[in-house]
């Protein structure tokens, strides 16, 4: 009935006490992901991810535009990750807290700056026409850990997306209608997946993977590591919160490596299921 006021003292105390005994409020192990469901399609470039109670929708679309003048042979990748009021009452992109803005920017940076999408392959006619790929991420339900869900949705949508086929004939480019010629997939170098950890306790000695909303509200620190299937670290993000030791970071990295493989497998299965 009223706007979100945060967890009660009893709830926080219960969560911390349970963690001290090695259990989480929802019964998971500290390194367990919640149930992850990925569904793609039917429209090309549409992916919906359900991670526990968090639900995120990603939509990829394309358009032919002029390239940036300083990058005439590269396509453009645009991101839009606004927190909608549907995800939680009071959440609104115009009055977003710094934390919410950070979530949006994080997903954008992970995919753009890790150069996951081959932008040279998006060039049609150098200096004149390139593909602009647009990724819209819509948060439908905020059940905690929006970053991981959003990165999985964005990657699944990008891999599922097909753009119209193009033939270059000298100085002219012919863009084929999708009904004439099968659309082609994007050229994706690698698939960065975010894995988020939450830390609890006065010295941040207790940690969990994939925090729920309640765990996020109680945690004292948060750490996101982005890895791809080639076991490369694409990004590390620890903004604010209490300090963590390098050992903790190492431990998280090892756990994340295993998890990313599982997630990538699930994405592959979802993509296969959508074309079946």
């Amino acid at each position, binding site marked *: 009935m*009223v706007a979100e006021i945060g967890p009660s003292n009893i709830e926080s105390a219960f969560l911390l006490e349970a963690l001290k005994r090695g259990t989480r409020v929802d019964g998971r192990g500290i390194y367990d992901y919640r149930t992850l469901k990925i569904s793609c399609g*039917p429209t090309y470039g549409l992916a*919906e991810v359900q991670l526990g109670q968090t639900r995120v929708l990603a939509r990829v679309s394309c358009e032919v535009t002029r390239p940036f003048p300083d990058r005439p042979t590269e396509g453009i990748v645009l991101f839009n990750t606004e927190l*909608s009021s*549907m995800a*939680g*009452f009071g959440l609104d992109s115009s009055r977003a807290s710094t934390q919410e803005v950070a979530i949006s920017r994080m997903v954008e940076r992970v995919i753009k700056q890790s150069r996951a999408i081959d932008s040279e392959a998006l060039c049609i006619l150098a200096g004149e026409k390139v593909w602009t790929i647009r990724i819209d991420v*819509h948060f*439908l*339900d905020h059940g905690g850990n929006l970053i991981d869900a959003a990165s999985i949705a964005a990657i699944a949508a990008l891999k599922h997306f097909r753009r119209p086929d193009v033939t270059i004939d000298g100085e002219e480019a012919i863009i084929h209608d999708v009904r004439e010629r099968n659309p082609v997939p994007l050229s994706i170098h690698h698939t960065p997946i975010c894995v988020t950890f939450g830390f609890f306790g006065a010295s941040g000695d207790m940690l969990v993977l994939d925090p729920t909303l309640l765990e996020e509200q109680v945690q004292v620190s948060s750490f996101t590591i982005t890895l791809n299937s080639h076991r490369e670290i694409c990004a590390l993000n620890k903004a604010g919160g209490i300090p963590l030791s390098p050992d903790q970071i190492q431990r998280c990295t090892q756990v994340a490596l295993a998890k990313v493989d599982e997630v990538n497998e699930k994405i592959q299965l979802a993509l296969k299921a959508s074309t079946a």
Partner: protein
Amino acid sequence: MSRPDRREASQLRALNCSLGQLNRADGSAQFSAGNTSVVSGIYGPVEAKVYEEKLDRAVVEVKFRPDIGAPTTKDKWMESAIRNTFEREILTHLHPRTLVQIVIQLREGDGSVDSAAINATSLALVDAGIPLKCMITAATCAVLSDDTTVVDPTQEEIDAARSTHTFAFASGSSTGPLYVDSRGDFTMDEYNHCYDLCALATERVLAFMRTAIEGKVTKEAKISAA
């Protein structure tokens, strides 16, 4: 003239819906007709801001988010159209000084988006338990260049149409439509014909919604009785 997807002129696309899929929202519904898919989430009745509350009734707010890109004036227009339609049918006087917030997210758009949004919102309001005078169901018609009228047009059909008409009716009411949106060149005869076709189509949509809601309610009754 046959339609691209081989439907009859008055045939609706395959309808699909699911209720209560979202956890944070008080009520939610996903409604799809063919490749047009809309999710509607309801928060309400919740606390309204002091400057926007009404002393004797609930305030209704609608947000419409497109599938691709940032919201434009077209989406703002849709928000006010949907708000005007539902404001009168929600029993707002039962919840004074509160807010009913309707958030609509377009997942895939393939024509007849406004009627899908209205249908999804109707279902979501029922899922949220917001008191309503009636169910509101909507359908869209398009008059093509060869003067044939088709129901539930796809985007391809709308792009080639001379005029499109969306009507929303209140269930169980013999009065006129709650919402009308007509665009393009058309005669009054064409308008009346579309009116009749949409009235029939909305009856079918209503029957579908009823089955969906009954299914959900009986399932919940079984779970709580067990």
